[in-house]
């Protein structure tokens, strides 16, 4: 029953309904504000329905972009970049938080301040990196690699510059640091387990703290998906990748309403797919936390 409720809520309401309604509302606002004639509303609505049905007749007025092509551009570029960025973001946050909690423990309990000093200087460096505007980093990369820049490098820039990794690390780190001095954490340290200074592996001190923070960290990640998609869109435009970002800008340039609506719809679909994957993790690992978060 819980699983069906999860699917109904996340797949139907947050997935399908939000995506379709979001696209419809944005399109309606767009058409209203450009003062489009009434027949444009009907034509755009019809086009949207054709897109939803995957018809080859989509956007007859503006040939060159079929529904399949737009979906393929999202699937080939935007989705993998977003997923790679999300994965990297998680790894960086885990690594930094494990190191920070271990450093705090060593400084507090054993008077070893070396790791704490390293943590502070790395934190300052991370702040400066986060302060570098994403588009500046992307343009410097594009200057070196052109449109041949490897996806991995783009994903690394996406999370390290512009503050995504900084924010995720700050969230997880402060959550884990709050527990370092707590009684249950102190009791755990008496078991003589390794500290897990580089990664919060199960059975280590940082892993133990992380297991308590995980139910809060997963919803946080789900909330960051739109920011990741936004960053990936900027990347696609800068690197001239044939992804949704470029298609969207092209549509704006040509005031091609059909293409604009289609790009927004697919972009929101990608957003919903990534958010669904993250929420599925929360539901599978902590079903009660998922219910509580509703």
């Amino acid at each position, binding site marked *: 029953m819980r699983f069906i409720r999860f699917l109904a809520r996340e797949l139907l309401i947050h997935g399908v309904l939000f995506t379709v309604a979001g696209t419809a509302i944005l399109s309606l606002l767009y058409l209203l504000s450009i003062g489009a004639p009434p027949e444009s509303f009907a034509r755009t609505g019809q086009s949207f329905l054709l897109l939803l049905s995957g018809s080859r007749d989509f956007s007859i007025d503006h040939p060159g972009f079929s529904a399949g092509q737009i979906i393929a551009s999202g699937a080939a570029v935007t989705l993998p970049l977003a997923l790679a960025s999300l994965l990297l973001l998680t790894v960086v946050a885990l690594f930094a938080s494990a190191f920070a909690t271990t450093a705090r423990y060593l400084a507090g309990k054993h008077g070893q301040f070396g790791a704490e000093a390293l943590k502070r200087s790395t934190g300052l460096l991370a702040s400066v990196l986060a302060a*570098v505007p994403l588009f500046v980093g992307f343009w410097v990369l594009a200057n070196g690699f052109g449109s041949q820049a490897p996806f991995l490098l783009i994903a690394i820039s996406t999370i390290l510059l512009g503050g995504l990794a900084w924010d995720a690390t700050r969230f997880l780190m402060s959550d884990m640091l709050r527990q370092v001095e707590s009684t249950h954490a102190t009791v755990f340290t008496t078991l003589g387990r390794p500290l897990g200074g580089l990664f919060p592996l199960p059975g280590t001190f940082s892993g133990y703290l992380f297991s308590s923070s995980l139910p809060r960290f997963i919803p946080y990640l789900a909330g960051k998906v739109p920011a990741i998609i936004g960053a990936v869109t900027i990347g696609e435009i800068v690197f001239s990748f044939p992804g949704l970002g470029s298609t969207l800008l092209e549509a704006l*340039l040509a005031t091609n309403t059909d293409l604009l609506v289609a790009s927004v719809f697919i972009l929101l679909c990608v957003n919903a797919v990534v958010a669904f994957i993250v929420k599925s993790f929360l539901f599978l690992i902590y079903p009660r936390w998922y219910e509580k978060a509703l």
Partner: protein
Amino acid sequence: MKKLYRIARALVLLALLSPLGLAWLPPDRLPLRLEPAFQAVLQSSFRQLSITLAATLALAALLTVVLGYASVLWQRFGRTGASILKAVESVPAILVALFCYAPVSGYLARHSSGASQTVSLLVFILAATLTLLPEAVRGVAIPLGDLYHRKYSLSFRSYGFTKRRILAVLMGSHVMRGTLKRIAAGILLKTLVLDCSFGFIIQLGFGSYGTPAHASPGALIAANRDALFEGGTPALFWLPSLLLVAISTSFLLTLGEREEAAA
């Protein structure tokens, strides 16, 4: 020692934020001598940025306080508002800004510079506020709700204070003042990022016709992006970028320290 550290820190933050203030000085009083045309555009873009930041902060902070307070006061309003804001939050911010800008681009191109600048600023402020509100309102409503359900709020209730009055008192508490400061820093940082990314993208996509009214440093960087190519003057690209890095660093340091103190 701690006081000295605080003074030094405040001075560093002030120095990092100084580009926003220096942009308002007459060109001949600036400590740096640049090519006059570039210096004029650089100053104008940072002046525009400071106006955008101040105006967005004023509007977003006002709405945040009102909506946060109302969400706790009327539970049903809070739940409905949270669902709407959650839906808004699921759309990438850059998409919201692009969508808000697209409909008025025709108006901006047709009208005089002054009118066009005002409309562009208004549209951007509305778009930015819309994208900032979900997190900001949550940031106020959650701690305010927590405070209301704590022991001393219960004793307020036993004296017969109304919920409206208790919440008003709690809004002025030390915890809420700290929360509001943190939210303000977050609003400024996000507005800065959105403003510059938006300016860069519009300039990249629409070229010289794209941003006659949105003179953001991001647009200036995009306009000088070719300076990195061979034979160009890299300073034209790097100078506004470094000034942006300095301003963002000051916001990040403010946010970072408060978070660490809370932990």
